[in-house]
């Protein structure tokens, strides 16, 4: 028999573990639920992985609403923001239970299976955190589809998390009751003693170097620190505080848009779209279909139609968001011009030839929302090319990538999608 590892921490124990578990029990379901909602927001036909490939693993589809306009900004922001802020807490929780990893294998098959489910739980959380953080920072080193991997791991997580909560909830409650939080918060380092004997408690610990309240403050401080470096990407005023994230910045320092009406984050540059500049130059035309015959409009004709202005967010699946004042032609006015007076759905196509987001499918609520528009201008100026000049779709509460840029055709239909 080899000598077991000697655990040294005098504060590791079931009470502290439960203190880390409790906020995770509250926070992780919010992250999971908002993640699933964001999948719904993508819409049945545009969700990735495609709905039919997912078997029965899908929340009941319902039409994502177009009101309130901030809905997707909130759900996606919560998913990414809270998911990032919980990272220090997840690490602390893993630290607090790590002696269990180094105990011998279980003989009892039920206990063995329970241990195995912990591999699924820890593995899926780490996998979700790592792929999520990489995706937010546009780093695709993992080499598989982010959507497939993140979505599959989400179900592994939901299964393993449910099992873990069901089996451990009584332990957590019991452990939390074993000490009083108020007493712990009043206990300085000098008076810090180990918890009573338990598999997590070191039998022969070192003298304390940090009190329990210190450890809790450390983890809480880590969460505040990550939050301070993350919230900026959800706001326009405090954007620069997201010091280390791509969405802490708007446009490049030398850019001609710097400080102007188009100075807000871009998702997919004009250069990356591969569109021939001539296609979106003076020869650009918008084709409206769905009526008796296609209707073709140039930009001057569009600008001559009644213009609508609204402040609407662009919220991206990578979690960042911005709110700008858009001006353009209401989709309902375009539908009337197309000869479809009562549209129930729309398909908006970009001049961009290839890529997963070259078209957008709108449901009834999104087509009819009074603020849904084909925007020509933003903040009182023409759209920049990077923001979709000559015209882009802006629909309230629609995921950013579906607000198609460089729009070429819009097909209206009287039939719902």
């Amino acid at each position: 028999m080899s000598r077991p590892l000697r655990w040294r921490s005098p504060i590791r124990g079931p009470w502290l573990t439960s203190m880390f578990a409790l906020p995770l029990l509250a926070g992780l379901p919010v992250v999971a639920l908002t993640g699933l909602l964001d999948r719904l927001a993508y819409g049945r036909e545009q969700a990735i992985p495609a709905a039919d490939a997912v078997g029965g693993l899908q929340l009941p589809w319902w039409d994502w609403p177009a009101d309130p306009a901030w809905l997707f900004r909130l759900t996606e922001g919560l998913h990414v923001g809270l998911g990032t802020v919980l990272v220090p807490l997840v690490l602390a929780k893993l630290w607090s239970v790590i002696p269990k990893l180094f105990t011998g294998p279980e003989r009892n098959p039920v206990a063995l299976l329970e241990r195995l489910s912990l591999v699924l739980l820890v593995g899926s959380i780490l996998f979700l955190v790592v792929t999520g953080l990489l995706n937010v920072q546009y780093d695709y080193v993992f080499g598989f589809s982010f959507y497939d991997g993140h979505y599959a791991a989400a179900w592994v997580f939901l299964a393993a998390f449910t099992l873990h909560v069901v089996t451990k909830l009584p332990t957590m409650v019991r452990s939390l009751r074993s000490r009083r939080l108020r007493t712990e918060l009043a206990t300085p380092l000098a008076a810090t003693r180990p918890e009573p004997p338990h598999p997590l408690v070191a039998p022969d610990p070192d003298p304390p170097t940090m009190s329990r309240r210190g450890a809790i403050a450390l983890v809480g401080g880590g969460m505040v620190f990550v939050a301070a470096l993350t919230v900026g990407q959800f706001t326009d005023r405090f954007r620069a505080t997201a010091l280390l994230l791509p969405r802490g910045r708007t446009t490049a320092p030398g850019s001609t848009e710097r400080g102007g009406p188009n100075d807000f984050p871009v998702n997919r540059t004009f250069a990356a779209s591969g569109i021939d500049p001539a296609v979106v130059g003076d020869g650009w035309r918008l084709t409206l279909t769905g009526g008796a015959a296609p209707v073709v409009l140039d930009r001057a004709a569009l600008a001559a139609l009644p213009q609508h202005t609204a402040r609407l967010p662009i919220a991206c699946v990578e979690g960042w968001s911005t709110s700008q004042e858009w001006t353009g032609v209401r989709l309902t006015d375009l539908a009337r011009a197309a000869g479809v007076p009562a549209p129930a759905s729309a398909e908006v196509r970009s001049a961009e030839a290839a890529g997963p987001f070259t078209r957008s499918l709108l449901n009834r609520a999104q087509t009819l929302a009074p603020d849904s528009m084909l925007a020509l201008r933003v903040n009182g100026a023409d759209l920049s090319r990077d923001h979709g000049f000559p015209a882009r779709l802006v629909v309230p509460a629609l995921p950013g990538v579906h607000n198609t840029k460089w729009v070429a055709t819009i097909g209206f239909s009287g039939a719902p999608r």
Partner: protein
Amino acid sequence: MLGCFALAGWAVWSIAGGSPDLVRMAWWFLGAVVLHDLVLFPLYAAGDRLLLTALPRTRVPLVNHVRVPLLGSGLALLVFLPGILRQGGATTTAATGLDQEPYRLRWVALSVALCAASALVWVLRTLRARRASSRA
């Protein structure tokens, strides 16, 4: 419990089953666990041991004044690794029109600021402790 394994298995199979990606996903799944449990944890635990033995004994213990800024710096490195390492530059530029130039220096500056703040607090605590003991 069996339901948990069934759901997990079914999910993975119906979403990624038959795809060549599945093997890569499995590697990343297991890799994440191994990297955390057998690399990251032993590393920071050993680092902490080293810290405890190497630091001089002082009136106000230094240990947490070293731990806190290092953990903060490490946490920022871990969470914002791609920008700091300049990974995914091409996709970042295609998506945002921006490069990854500033992040490394910003991270260094942030780490220095954390260390400086922690050192300042230590100095203040030491001064206060000294004054308290001279009064006693």
